[in-house]
């Protein structure tokens, strides 16, 4: 599958050359460095299991595999299938909780 992507000037991603990191990237770096990202991911996984989201996604995948046949489905197919549905069906409460956690973190990291 061809993508027309604008290649950045330094494809090897050498440090900070010619491109300022965006706010999003800075936050991401801070989250990873402090280990908070790992904790948030773990919390998110727990919440999504609790509310049945994981089971729903599993059921979607199973239904798809049943329809197409086990040998005709790849991981990429499944990811493309459930990503939009998955993103749309995350409960608001889960989103709110994680946002709150991130906000708290950012305040403590004094950004």
């Amino acid at each position, binding site marked *: 599958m061809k993508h027309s992507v604008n290649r950045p000037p330094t494809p090897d991603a050498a440090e900070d050359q010619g491109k300022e990191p965006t706010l999003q990237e800075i936050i991401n770096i801070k989250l990873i460095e402090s280990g908070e990202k790992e904790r948030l991911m773990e919390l998110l996984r727990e919440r999504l299991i609790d*509310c049945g989201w994981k089971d729903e996604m599993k*059921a979607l995948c199973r239904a798809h595999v049943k329809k197409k046949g086990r040998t005709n489905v790849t991981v990429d197919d499944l990811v493309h299938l459930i990503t939009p549905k998955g993103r749309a069906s995350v*409960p608001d409460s889960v989103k709110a909780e994680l946002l709150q956690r991130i906000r708290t973190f950012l305040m403590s990291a004094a950004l």
Partner: protein
Amino acid sequence: MCARNSIYTNPKPCKHLADYKLRHGFNTYDSIRNCLKTTPNGRTRVAKHTTKIPRCSFCDRYQGRLYFCLMCSSLWCPSHILLHAQSEKGHEVAIDMDRSELYCCLCCDQVYDPDFDKVVVCNQVKDLPGGSKSKTNSFEASGERSSKRKRLDSGIGLDLKKSELLVSMRDRRAKSCYPLGLRGLNNLGSTCFMNSVLQALLHAPPLRNYFLNDRHNSVQCRKRSGEKLCLLCDIDAISSAMFCGDRTPYTPAHFLYSWWQHSSNLASYEEQDAHEFFISVLDGIHEKESKIRNSGKDDGDCQCIAHRAFSGLLRSDVTCISCGFSSTTYDPCVDISLNMDTSNLSSSNANKPIKPDEKTSVSTLSGCLNLFTRAERLGSDQKLHCQNCQELRDSSKQLSIRRLPLVLCLHIKRVEHSLVRKISRKINQYMQFPFSLDMTPYLSSSIVRSKFGNRIFTFEYDNSNSSAAYEIFAVIAHSGMLESGHYVTYLRLKNQWYKCDDAWISEVDEGIVRASQCYMLFYVQKLLYNKANEDSSFVRISPRRDPFESTAGCS
């Protein structure tokens, strides 16, 4: 650790993976050995770049899935990894960085290799606290006896056909009547809780065989113990009465009296809880046996019929959230009490546009079992002492079944206690249950294995026999309210369901059973079930009754 996989069928490697392995021989996965990092929650990821944020070599993306090429250690996102594999020959195999799972770039699909999984699992075991220090880790059970008694087939040593006391003969009334052993029990004053459990116990294949083989001889028992009170003798008497061919309802008065002596705190004419009664009967049987044998053996090895039939082993893993150290304990059990899976059924998820075809609003037995074996994060007020961290830490606990019993009794907890209002309420919610049950996903081998991610590696104690397949044979259903309800038992004999409502026995359709409000479910290992349902009609020769005497009908 063996690489041969018994239960799970190994997916075959794709052409590209097979070629890759051929080319690189023993060093296939060496490049990643030192790059694997295990987090406390058990996930292993590839962490080569400790300073930089991992990004796709083409588009700089750092979000979502990233793949690590085994040949050149470059990183790619799913959209661009195909380009890499197409442009560089031999770079077809990569690893999903977050999950440590193999990916074939040319097939664009996940692939599996037991050798790879072995590397990951070994690394994970080594990394987790307690892994390298001692041999006792998730693989081996610490403090467990190595003798694995296979209690599948004739483990109890009871074979119906070999017994001398039984005479195999055609039951002349077979066509028009119910199977032998089916007989109503009179209600002696709110004793339906007792009748329902007795019906289930007497038709549990191991117990049925035990009594029919005269394994508990009342005469010898009285001689040996000198006591007049013996629950087993009384159950033996009921069993004889059930199987003697007389269809008129039987009155288990002597048993009730004996049981009152044993559980005097429950002796009254009030309605009791069937599950509580069940436990107290097993307890009574065990007590008597251990008195006779004078042994203080723990439940795991006890040879009394109650334990031989019902005893299983539960495994509990408590994991420290901070460091990942986990400690394991084993506890014997005679049944499993399940909470109902009602929590994620209420539609509190407002924005769910698409629902799969599944019924997400019905409580199911598998849902309850999943809840039972789910890793539960213990509250902050329940911090436990972590041996590795040497202080109190938040932990998570997970239960699984280490050893399944011959007869599996599942108790559905239908009582809800409200601490605020200080009342108990019955949960009347319908729960769906299957007639054939596969307990494999709830075994310790499955639960523990899932901690390592998506692996096809065989663990040491994977049970390759089929003893996780169960068939239902009895259902105790409850109707009504907490204080004033009624119990009935549905029995499955030779694939026909019968309703045992105190003194009244009737044939029912399986739909009725499925729709009932189950309270206790009794499953037996499939092989035992099949054996018990073979067409071997027989009558126990009882000195008290002539089996050929015609009786007054069967309804």
